[in-house]
């Protein structure tokens, strides 16, 4: 049992004496909260138009801001765990806006908000129906015969599966913070890394089946709790103390709120997708051993013969680098490249350090492969 030591408390109280500015910061924080307007924390505001929809899935095309120099359009496929708006969080933190300025024609899929009514949707439905339908719509809208496919996190895994099953539709494949080898671990990884792997592998298969049968979905709230638990104390304190660090700068304060807005909006996973995601991938690692079945079709990674750029984040605690680095050995392509960026899982999109390097590297790689 913890024995509390008075000397430690006295030391703490001495520090308190040096932080009397805290009261003023608290007041400033409360004042800023009262002043902020909804429109100031809007996210994903780059202009775009709907070009296709199927059930709850919508395909958007971003409006060009510069002459389109890359002939093959880029389709962004985000995870079901969060919203695609992270790629355009705000004007000065936007992979989308940076790429548009470089002349890339960009489409994005919005998966919508699955509910219990979608519980029987499978990964096969998402990949062979929705993603395939969106790609056909991109081809029709742009006049291109193929797309450049950019998948993020779980959306990267979906994109990789799609590229293996329908390689004729993909000119280049870009994976970002994408889990591929679900059993790969780095022996020296920090305590906060790989917890999703540990926790999902801790569960019994029959318990996962029963959970999805009873609830119908893997709830967004539960996933939010999982992410919070991966950095428990830091996440618990952020609304009380982190907020204080940005009270002297309204711009930083709004950045904080926009990120929180994105974090708070977590869609549910359809039950059948969640079962495949947890059991077939996290538990049985089927993808890298070519045992993953989608609509009875085996996903053979050797069929991924188009050029592949794999971008990952050095400090990613959700998809540790071991899960995604060096996956070229599983693929059929000889044109495999990697780019490691100094950021976290979503920090890769919103960090000031990665803003220009991410879009520029991605565009350079695509332009270098543009067919004449």
């Amino acid at each position, binding site marked *: 049992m*913890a024995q509390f030591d008075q000397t430690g408390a006295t030391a703490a109280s001495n520090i308190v004496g040096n932080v009397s500015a*805290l009261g003023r910061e*608290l007041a400033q924080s409360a004042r800023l909260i009262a002043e902020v307007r909804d429109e100031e924390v809007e996210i994903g505001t780059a202009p775009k138009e709907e070009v296709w929809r199927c059930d709850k899935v919508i395909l958007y095309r971003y409006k060009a801001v510069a002459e389109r120099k890359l002939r093959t359009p880029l389709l962004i496929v985000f995870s079901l765990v969060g919203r695609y708006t992270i790629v355009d969080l705000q004007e000065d933190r936007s992979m989308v806006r940076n790429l548009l300025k470089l002349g890339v024609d960009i489409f994005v899929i919005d998966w919508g908000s699955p509910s219990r009514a979608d*519980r029987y949707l499978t990964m096969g439905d998402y990949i062979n129906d929705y993603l395939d339908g969106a790609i056909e719509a991109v081809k029709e809208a742009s006049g291109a015969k193929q797309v450049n496919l950019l998948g993020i996190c779980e959306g990267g895994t979906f994109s990789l599966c799609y590229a293996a099953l329908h390689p004729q539709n993909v000119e280049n494949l870009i994976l970002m913070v994408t889990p591929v080898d679900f059993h790969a671990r780095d022996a020296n990884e920090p305590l906060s890394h790989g917890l999703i792997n540990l926790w999902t592998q801790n569960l019994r298969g029959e*318990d996962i089946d029963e*959970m999805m049968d009873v*609830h119908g979905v893997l709830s967004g709230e539960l996933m939010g709790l999982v992410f919070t638990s991966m950095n428990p104390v830091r996440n618990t304190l952020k609304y*009380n103390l982190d907020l204080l660090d940005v009270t002297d700068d309204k711009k930083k304060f709004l950045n904080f709120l926009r990120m929180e807005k994105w974090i708070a909006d977590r869609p549910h996973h359809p039950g059948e997708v969640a079962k495949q995601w947890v059991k077939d991938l996290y538990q049985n690692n089927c993808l890298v051993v070519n045992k993953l079945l989608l609509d009875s079709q085996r996903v053979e990674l050797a069929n991924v013969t188009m050029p592949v750029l794999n971008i990952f984040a050095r400090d990613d605690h959700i998809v540790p680098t071991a899960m995604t680095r060096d996956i070229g050995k599983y693929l059929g392509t000889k044109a495999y490249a990697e780019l490691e960026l100094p950021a976290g899982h979503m920090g890769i999109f919103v960090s000031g350090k990665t803003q220009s390097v991410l879009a520029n590297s991605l565009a350079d790689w695509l332009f270098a492969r543009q067919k004449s």
Partner: protein
Amino acid sequence: MAEANYLKMMTDFWETAGKTASEAQKDLFQQLAARFAASFPLAAMPVGAAGPNNAGAAFSELLNSLMALPSAVKAATDQSNLSDKKTAELLQKIMNPQEWLSVSGYTDQSVRQLVEGPKFADIGQLEGKFAVLFKAWTDLRTRALEQSTIQLKAYAKAAQEFTGTLRELAKDKPLDSRAQLVGLWVDVANRHLLEAQRSAEYLENQRELLRASTGFKRAQTELSDFYGEAFGIPTRSEIDDLTRMVAELKREVRADQRRRRRQGNDVVDRRTAHGSI
């Protein structure tokens, strides 16, 4: 709002989550035992080490033993000549075990959200199903409390290390900013929490908590389905059957659309290959 009120609002905000969670948990098992005994004397009460009374006692013992912590911090801050009492209050709250429980309270809340549904008072007198449901609820609360206890133990270890480190630092290299103080606490407490969340004890509890939450929801659904059938209201299983049928039909429609689209493309391709036809 006056500045002083802003300060109160922020500190109250910090306090509320922890206090609510801990007070609710302290009372929970006494109420549970009383209600269960009064309503269902013959129903299956969980027994043994995992029972709610044992879990509740272990939790209360740990919590009570740690409650000396904030008063010790208060005594120390009272002895100092602080002009900013609100800041002192904030530090006391950081070291308050009731605040730490806001984390386990969050878990509790998420579990509750998973099992939202009819309240017991609405369910009626179907003793058999009611007893199953009540046992499932008891199991769920027991597992949630066990998880809170694991987390509280980790916080206790963190508090011990944190105060020890502060004592050492006070001798040689005192911290001189709030950021350093908070950073130290976050590093120490995060490490202890993460170690706990990787432990065999936690993983076992995590499995059982998940099973208990699913078991409760299952019992709840079966009870509501019983009423659904009795009163001609669609049951959960009937709605799920319909959902499955609709999903399969839509899958067929999408496949048909895909086939037709590809046939159309084939026609276009043939025209392109052979000129106009």
